């Protein structure tokens, strides 16, 4: 499957709002390459793939509202590949019922300012969400990742895996929260944010948060920020890699840790092109 060449349904919508309700057990793939708001409902067992690509210039904003009914499954890839003068405000709210599944792969690089807020409400038993993201900034650009995953009922699973990459006065914020409410026993929640800062002019602020109001849960979270590992760099040089190439290899490896698990190969290719120019 290749969403870049194959004829998937491309959304062309001038009203700025797309309302879609997917009936039971139906399956659909949508490619969105314009700025609009989504109002989605996936009914029992429906499956939807969305690839949303932000390009272009100027101020853009999106506010998406998504409801996944029992057994609904949404695979979502968001690529932000904007021009340097653009400012994007992005918000996605997703409510999940029993046994529904939300997989979200995101990549952010390019806009002058990109603010993203993802709110997932696990409000049906055995629902699960898997959020992954690579966010990068350089040349005075700023990117903010705000995530809230709320566990309200028992036996749900959530995972957040985010990698940030910063250099040349790029700035980043990671503000990720897991909230396990009273009564949400048997919750499994995981959050991990690692950031690589390639020089002293770049900045990242990371705020991993965990709030738990019930017993019998398994939660883990962690965040690290660091530079290129000098030991790894030396190891590669000691095997014959010139310093510059060894450095490049390590930066790519860092990014690959998250994007290798992205659903679409084409997304990986677009990302490689955007950040590594190849």
């Amino acid at each position, binding site marked *: 499957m290749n969403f870049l060449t194959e004829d998937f349904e491309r959304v062309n919508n001038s009203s700025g709002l797309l309302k879609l309700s997917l009936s039971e057990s139906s399956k659909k793939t949508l490619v969105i390459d314009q700025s609009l708001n989504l109002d989605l409902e996936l009914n029992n067992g429906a499956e939807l793939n969305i690839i949303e690509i932000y390009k272009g210039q100027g101020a853009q904003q999106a506010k998406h509202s998504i409801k996944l009914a029992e057994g609904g499954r949404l695979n979502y890839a968001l690529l932000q590949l904007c021009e340097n003068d653009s400012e994007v405000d992005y918000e996605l709210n997703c409510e999940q019922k029993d046994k529904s599944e939300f997989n979200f792969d995101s990549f952010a690089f390019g806009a002058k300012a990109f603010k993203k807020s993802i709110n997932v409400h696990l409000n049906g038993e055995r629902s699960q969400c898997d959020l992954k993201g690579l966010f990068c900034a350089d040349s005075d650009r700023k990117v903010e990742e705000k995530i809230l995953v709320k566990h309200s009922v028992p036996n749900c699973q959530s995972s957040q895996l985010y990698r940030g990459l910063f250099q040349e006065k790029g700035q980043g914020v990671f503000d990720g929260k897991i909230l396990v409410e009273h009564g949400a026993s048997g919750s499994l929640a995981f959050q991990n944010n690692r950031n690589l800062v390639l020089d002293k002019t770049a900045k990242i602020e990371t705020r991993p948060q965990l709030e738990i109001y019930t017993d019998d849960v398994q939660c883990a979270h962690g965040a690290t920020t660091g530079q290129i*590992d000098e*030991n*790894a760099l*030396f*190891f*590669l*040089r*000691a*095997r*014959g*890699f*010139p*310093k510059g*190439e*060894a450095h490049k*290899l*390590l930066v*790519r*490896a*860092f*990014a*690959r*840790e998250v994007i*290798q698990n992205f659903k679409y190969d084409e997304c990986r290719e677009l990302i490689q092109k955007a950040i590594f120019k190849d």
Partner: protein
Amino acid sequence: MLEINDLKARVDDKEILKGFSLNVKPGEVHAIMGPNGSGKSTVASVLSGRDVFEVTGGSVNFKNKDLLELKPEERACEGFFLAFQYPIEIPGVSNSYFLKSAVNAQRKYHGLEEIDSADFLTKLKEKMALLEMKTSFLSRSINEGFSGGEKKRNEILQMLMLEPSLAFLDETDSGLDIDALKVVAKGVNALRAKDRSIVMITHYQRLLDYIEPDFVHVLSDGKIVKSGPKELALELEAKGYDWIEAK
């Protein structure tokens, strides 16, 4: 091959090598033994070009070049190989990609074309079979989640693929059980040749049962205090390092 004369090196204000000399001819296998803190690993680090150490005196000639003037990658491309005591993990870089890129980086240095993929794979599989490594290893990230034994085996695999003129093994035997030690020794012995040299740093005589050295040296307080044939290792094992240091 390698002539080290009166090498002195320090880290911060602490002098660690205090006049280390060693002469390794082509085809020879040398073992350097010595107590903890005698400077064994410092020798390996300094020779490989680690910049945490400052060389304050002496000279190192490697294949008629001043080794100390070369960058770490140039040393590697000239045929110097260090098997690391603590192999590094690099998530996100697969072993096969890394090995091929390393081979090609060294070929490029010598003005050669990239290695043919099929030839590379044939050779790699042959070396992996020798080291009793599973093919699933190829798609895994460098040393990520590997056991201590697997990491050491991986160092030896890199050595076999890069075919250095001089291999410096820094405590490659530490942390290995007897079966893994035999496999690693088999790999090292496969590299032995008239025009290649091996220097092993070790705490234990046990390794030398499997990789027989031509010479054994005892390092103490930053310099070699005794050299002899392989029997010296047995004597050390029986009498301990105090026997040397007391003299």
